[in-house]
């Protein structure tokens, strides 16, 4: 079979049927990661870290080594691995409750130390696994099971923009926000994920890819409505693009290349 001409399942993806809801974008993002790992030929030296949240079972869908973290602690575990085994390729896969709420301390400090791993941050503006509660990323007036009248920003503040927040740090090399709402943006997201892994392989420091995603079930929408809502409501507040690159920084503070 000629490679590149046949649509096949990446080797890094398992045959398991996912538990994700119809219209959920986790599956797309999993596939992008798997394609990148195949293309870079790093399956044998990659360790993924699953979060607590909908993606807690992500390890069932990949075919390489995985660790399962406690809620929010994946960046600390990744730090532990990379420090003692710099020759492994390590990524964390985290949702917005996991990363932007309970795990805020771990992600900020791992990023600021320039730990040489990659974080894929799936932002769908809600807690998924626990049943649609308000997240730090929940949009103003967005209804969730713990903000039944809509997020009141006078009460709980505005949503946190993680890519912007992390790019305010001097150390991290690559901070970008992408989305998987349309085929074109999916392709761009894949390029960003690949770039993040390439920076890690080159021994450059921390790389962070935020992916604006949907949660039709907890948003109470059809998959199509969810994509439209994400485009109309989330993207204006969570603009896409690179917030920090090693090239633009010239020599990043901890760039060891």
């Amino acid at each position, binding site marked *: 079979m000629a490679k590149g001409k046949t649509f096949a399942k990446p080797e890094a993806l398992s045959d398991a049927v996912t538990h994700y809801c119809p219209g959920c974008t986790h599956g797309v993002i999993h596939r992008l990661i798997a394609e990148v790992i195949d293309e870079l030929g790093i*399956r*044998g*030296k*990659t*360790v993924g*870290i*699953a979060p607590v949240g909908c993606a*807690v*079972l992500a*390890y069932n869908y*990949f*075919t*390489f*080594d*995985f*660790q*399962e*973290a*406690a809620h929010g*602690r994946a960046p*600390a*575990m*990744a*730090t*532990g*691995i990379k*420090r*003692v*085994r710099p*020759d*492994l390729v390590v990524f964390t896969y985290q949702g917005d409750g996991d990363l932007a709420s309970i795990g805020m*301390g*771990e992600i900020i*400090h791992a990023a600021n130390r320039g730990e040489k791993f990659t974080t894929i941050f799936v932002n769908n503006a809600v807690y998924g696994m626990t049943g649609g509660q308000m997240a730090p990323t929940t949009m103003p007036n967005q209804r969730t099971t713990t903000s039944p009248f809509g997020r009141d920003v006078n009460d709980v503040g505005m949503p946190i923009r993680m890519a912007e927040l992390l790019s305010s740090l001097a150390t991290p090399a690559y901070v970008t926000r992408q989305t998987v709402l349309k085929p074109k943006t999916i392709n761009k997201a894949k390029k960003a994920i690949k770039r993040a892994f390439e920076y890690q392989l080159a021994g450059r420091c921390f790389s962070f890819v935020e992916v604006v995603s949907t949660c039709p079930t907890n948003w109470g929408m059809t998959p199509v409505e969810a994509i439209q809502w994400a485009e109309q409501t989330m993207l204006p507040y969570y603009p896409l693009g690179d917030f920090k690159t090693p090239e633009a920084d010239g020599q990043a503070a901890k760039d060891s290349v």
Partner: protein
Amino acid sequence: MAKVLMKGNEAIGEAAIRAGCLNYFAYPITPQSEVAEYLSRRMPEVGGVFLQGESEVAVSYMIFGAAACGARVFTTSSSPGISLMSEAISYIAAAQCPAVFVNIMRGGPGLGGILPSQADYFQSVKGGGHGDYRLLVMAPASVQEAVEMVMQAFPLSEKYRNPVMILGDGLIGQMMEPVEFPDHLRTEPTNKDDWATNGMAFRKSDKRNLVKSLFLDPDQLNSNNLTLKAKYEQMKQEEIRFETYNTDSDYRVLLVSYGTMSRVCRTAIDQLKEEGVEVGMVRPQTLFPFPEEAVRTAAGKAGCRAVASIEMSMGQMVEDVERSVRGSLPVHWYGKCGGDVPTPEEIIDFTRSLL
């Protein structure tokens, strides 16, 4: 190797290196910050890893991540810090990874104080974190014993794929004593290819490894807990350690004491002996597994009229002593937990009150 005079905390750091552990993550907390200060200089000298994390929570998960990919790794902390690490300790036990935690105890609860204490007995022995797990808990009574226990802790944690806790009171960390680092206790990390996430290509395997603690299926969770239980039962068979003192005599009172407190008890026992009063002691060196049978046997000796647990806590180990004695004799408690170590005179007065 000749003996050197070292502070307990520094000796603990050096012992880990001598044991073959070159990976250390930590967060500062009194009275054990000297371990981190010492290793921040020593680890680079030996090509090891030193990292000061942003919190005890983060540090404990750095330990988990490193342990789960097969590295020999340890941390040190003190009581409030161990509380923060207890979540990860539960996860590490559930996921069956080896790691070593050293707790140089200070007074509690809350922020407590920074002086010596043994108030974390329950936390260490009964499980500070959630769920059905146990730690193998070793309690040194001298800097030399702390060194030896740290060196032994690594192979033990690998034998059982379970965290090992070294539980020392603040004095163990803060005092200086002559120590030597026994070469025969140096061990190589075991092969962890069967389970560690150390990269398929590196272990030349097609089978991926998964380190996790989530078992949504009730049968699987029960099965994992039975696996853990079997290990804890094996520890009870194979790892109980204790020392006895003056138990050849016709003692009328049996003391049970561990750590620094047991050294004060020895002094009290010696003085009482001069005054014609025989008192015996069992000193647990492992707190889990607890030397139940040794305590029961010693308490059952003809002429022994009372048992007392002497601790720098408000009475924690005394519950395990009661459990061991099984109601055959009255079991008393004496202790303090503000930072002052009970004096030999206090122990003597208390022991006399039991006669």
